[in-house]
């Protein structure tokens, strides 16, 4: 009897594990479109920062599935991406699905090099992009 109960419990726990197993896969490719973007440990700008990546850097946009649902946008507009050897969350507004051609560092590479940005300045620049609150007034005709 004991054996039956134990094997039942084991089967149930294994099924539960199989159901809650979360998998990630590459959904599409993208490029950093902001001067700098930062990868966070969660979809929130107050989370731990893993790294800072430059504009134009290629990234892999991941989707996450729990077997039932698949999601690609997390929180209030965040992607889960793989870039520069890290997997983390980045604000979707900083990632373009097509190759970016108007990065400041690519348009003016020698000018940008001459700035001699320190690691700390790059970090702050990436952070700055994340701490802004973005807004806009609707363009003419938007609400017609």
């Amino acid at each position: 009897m004991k054996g039956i109960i134990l094997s039942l419990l084991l089967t149930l726990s294994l099924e539960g594990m199989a159901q809650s197993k979360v998998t990630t896969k590459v959904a599409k490719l993208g490029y950093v479109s902001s001067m700098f973007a930062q990868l966070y440990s969660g979809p929130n700008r107050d989370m731990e920062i893993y790294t800072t990546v430059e504009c134009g850097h290629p990234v892999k946009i991941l989707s996450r599935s729990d077997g039932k649902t698949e999601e690609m946008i997390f929180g209030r507009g965040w992607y889960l991406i793989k870039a520069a050897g890290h997997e983390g969350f980045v604000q979707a507004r900083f990632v373009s699905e097509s190759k970016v051609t108007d990065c400041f560092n690519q348009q003016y590479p020698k000018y940008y090099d001459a700035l001699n940005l320190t690691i700390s300045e790059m970090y702050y620049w990436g952070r700055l992009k994340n701490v802004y609150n973005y807004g806009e007034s609707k363009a003419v005709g938007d609400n017609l």
Partner: protein
Amino acid sequence: MMKILLLTLLLASTHAQEVDNEFVDFSKIKNVLKQDGLDEVAKKKTLDEKKKKEREVSKMQKKYDMPRIEDFWGFMSEYWLVKNAPILKWDFKKADYGVDEYFGAFLEKFGFRGVKYRILYLDAPVITHMALPANEKELIFLISVPFIRTLDLSKIEISLLMFEDYIRSEYGYFKANVQDADLISSFGTNFYGKKFDEKLLQKVLKNYDNMVWNKGFTINEQHNVTKKVVSHLVSDLKIWGLYRELLVKIDRLVKTNIIYKNYPATYPSPELQIKWITEPKEIL
């Protein structure tokens, strides 16, 4: 003996052939080459190579482009914000005041559409409120959280201050105060083969510092801004009244709180603004 003779004849005939080859008249086959189109192919190839080389040189030279005016201000303001991060203290955990959405609706109400903006909250009173230039039709608003808390400002009051900053930027006062002839003439130029003028960049940073920390705006500039703000707000007397009350609050603050004593040096002055907006003939 016979063998030697044969060898001599053989050598002599080989030498004669080589000599003949040396004197092949290529001009005779020019026409043949022309007819075959090989001449054209060779010309095209040379031209293509020349063009390729020119493209490579141009691509390499382009790397030395100075920013165009439309790319400069957003970059420069952010560069200044990064350089001054420890003083401005904008990297802190803050509450969501909901102003980003509210201000959009505020601008629309007064007919300002398609304006993009970024709000940066500061955990320091060193700048109370200010708009920095960004790219075209875009602004960076700086708002001090200690200032908001001290005055217990509502969303509409914060929006009124931002609106004042927006009008100030429409006049282009900030840009006009930090740029000079050297900077203007550098936009869109190229420094290939020259030394990068680092002094120019440092000068603009200094001008930003001077504008924000010392110089501020003139009475004339402030008068124009206040009048313009009122000319828009007068269509909604409730909001106009709130603007006046806000200026009274700020006036009281700057006269009683030492932390904000320099406010009138940047924005001269709340007292004058109250006077300007209550001139009856001007608001009717």
